[in-house]
């Protein structure tokens, strides 16, 4: 289907697609097996200028938005979602600086992130604060012209690989959720170290790691926005990034569907290719219906966000994460069914697609939490109408 992308958007998609075909697909099986971070591919993505896409032109970017990011993430995920999330997590770390940072912070960090010379990460989750983000315990105590950080973040994508971390920590515990702030912490700052690197079911080549802060001192100038706006920044960040998770799911589902279609045209049983069996055709059709619906949803949501016309879009953004990630889970499981026993084997990429798909229902707010957000917004909307 033609989504009426601009010429520039087509270029972006084509570049990402070339990286997937030429650089990711040939090595993804090995990356999955070893869990090694795809540093070389990250360099290729940087050389193609794709890290520049969502950064404003005055800081070395191209000035694109959500849709452009989704196009890249979709294409990269068709190759390997582990690579795609390493790219996307840097965008997640760059967004708070770009949207809420000072001129000085933008000048210092955005050009480095635009060129892909440095990666970023976003650290919110803690051992005792997952879905319940308000329960974070990491503190950033103001002391003179510094903050002193203490605490541990877990499951942080690009942990160890990134140079620039946006960390959500409590600058004033008494104020509860209003006491959280977003701070920039650079790798190499004394008192900042990396803990356990996770051994994961899927997206295995992405780095998921613990961040440990032990009396880590950072200048006050590293505060993003004002003190107390940590969760406002977090929510805005997630509202803008959720369709990106949708795009990961979309690319993953598309990749699995492509494999299933290809295989069904080659595999012969009962003297015919299995694609001639209606049972298989209907499976493929159902997969395609879901994939295309997910794509239409993600692109429209991203366009709406980029237009800037709608101020509150937490419901739409949640929908654009939940539906595609549920689709990806269902489609990748079905793809294995189409390949039968071969689909269960590591010789074919579909079992990897399935393992990769699972995380998309979990991170950046589980699908249960997304449904909570959608439900709450529905109730709010109906109350507003009554007035």
């Amino acid at each position, binding site marked *: 289907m033609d989504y009426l992308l601009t*010429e*520039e958007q087509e270029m972006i998609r084509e570049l990402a697609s070339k990286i997937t075909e*030429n650089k990711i697909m040939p090595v993804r099986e090995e990356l999955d097996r070893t869990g090694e971070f795809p540093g070389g591919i990250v360099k290729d993505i940087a*050389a*193609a*200028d794709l890290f*520049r896409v969502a950064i404003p032109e005055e800081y070395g970017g*191209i000035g694109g938005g959500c849709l452009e990011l989704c196009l890249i993430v979709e294409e990269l995920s068709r190759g390997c979602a582990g690579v795609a999330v390493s790219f996307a997590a840097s965008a997640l770390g760059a967004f708070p600086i770009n949207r809420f940072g000072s001129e000085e912070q933008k000048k210092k960090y955005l050009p480095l992130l635009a060129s892909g010379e440095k990666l970023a990460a976003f650290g919110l989750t803690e051992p005792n604060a997952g879905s319940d983000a308000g329960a974070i315990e990491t503190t950033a105590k103001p002391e003179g012209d510094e903050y002193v950080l203490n605490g541990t973040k877990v499951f942080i994508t690009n942990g160890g690989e990134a140079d620039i971390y946006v960390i959500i920590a409590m600058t004033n515990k008494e104020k509860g959720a209003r006491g959280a702030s977003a701070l920039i912490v650079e790798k190499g700052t004394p008192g900042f170290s990396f803990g356990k690197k996770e051994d994961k079911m899927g997206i295995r080549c992405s780095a998921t790691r613990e961040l440990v802060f032990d009396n880590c001192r950072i200048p006050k100038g590293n505060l993003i926005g004002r003190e107390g706006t940590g969760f406002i920044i977090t929510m805005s960040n997630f509202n803008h990034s959720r369709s990106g998770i949708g795009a990961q799911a979309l690319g993953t589902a598309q990749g699995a569907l492509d494999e299933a279609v290809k295989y069904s045209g080659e595999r012969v049983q009962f003297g015919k290719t299995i694609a001639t069996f209606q049972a298989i055709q209907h499976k493929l059709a159902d997969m395609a219906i879901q994939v295309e619906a997910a794509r239409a949803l993600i692109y429209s949501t991203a366009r709406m966000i980029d237009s800037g016309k709608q101020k509150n879009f937490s419901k739409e953004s949640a929908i654009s994460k939940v539906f595609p990630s549920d689709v990806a889970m269902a489609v990748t499981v079905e793809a294995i069914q189409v390949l039968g026993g071969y689909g269960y084997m590591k010789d074919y990429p579909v079992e990897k697609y399935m393992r990769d798909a699972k995380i998309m229902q979990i991170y950046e707010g589980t699908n249960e939490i997304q449904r909570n957000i959608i439900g709450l917004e529905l109730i709010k909307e109906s109350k507003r109408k009554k007035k």
Partner: protein
Amino acid sequence: MNIIVFIKQVPETTEVKINPETNTLIREGVTSIINPFDMYAIEEGLRVREAKGGRVTVITMGPPQAEAALRQCIAMGVDEVVLLSDRVFAGSDTLATSYTLSCAVRKIKDFDLIICGKQASDGDTAQVGPGIAQHLNIPFVTYVRKIEEIPEDRKSIRVEKMVDEGYEVREMKLPALITVVKEINEPRLESLRGKLNAKKAQIPVWTFSDMEMDKERLGLDGSPTQVIKIFTPQPREAGEIFEGEAEDCVNKLVEKMKENKIV
């Protein structure tokens, strides 16, 4: 270092179809690409520039459509491109082509290194690179798999030339020409900024009147090569291979030769 890279636009297929009546390539319905071997030449040019500074200029001779190939070079990051296009260039063989290309180099004057792919995937002659060097009277090395060194004074270059048994190390004075093989590097992909630049770029076109050249040496008139006939050879049947101990094989072979009345 000022580097000139020559490229050719070729049909994207390994199975070139030939019109038996006109003895020419059938180009309809075949998309055009940059000759794959030239991609390594472009990449090497960019790498030398990145290491030593300077500019990379890519030149091609061809019809106006060849502009697309040059835009792709801009997207990969080269500094300048030139299209040599004129009716009088049409029908050039390798001699006339290399002469025409050398005239473009003379116009540019200031260059240190010329890089070409080892051969074009359509003609497969591997003659144009060395031909340019001869016309310019500069040294050349073909089948280069590695540039070992260009010393600080930039007066010479040391390269590894692929030969059947391995490689030879050759050194020559600059300016010089090399033709490169695919072992030399991995060509980069295009970049987004490059593609955006390529879209906007004006492609300079040089015609006969833009260069100092001898008209008799151009195009069909300047091409001593005459194609009498082009045909697709019939595939030969695979031969028979005898396996086993040498003595048995020899016996089998003798049997076979007797059978076929060769001996």
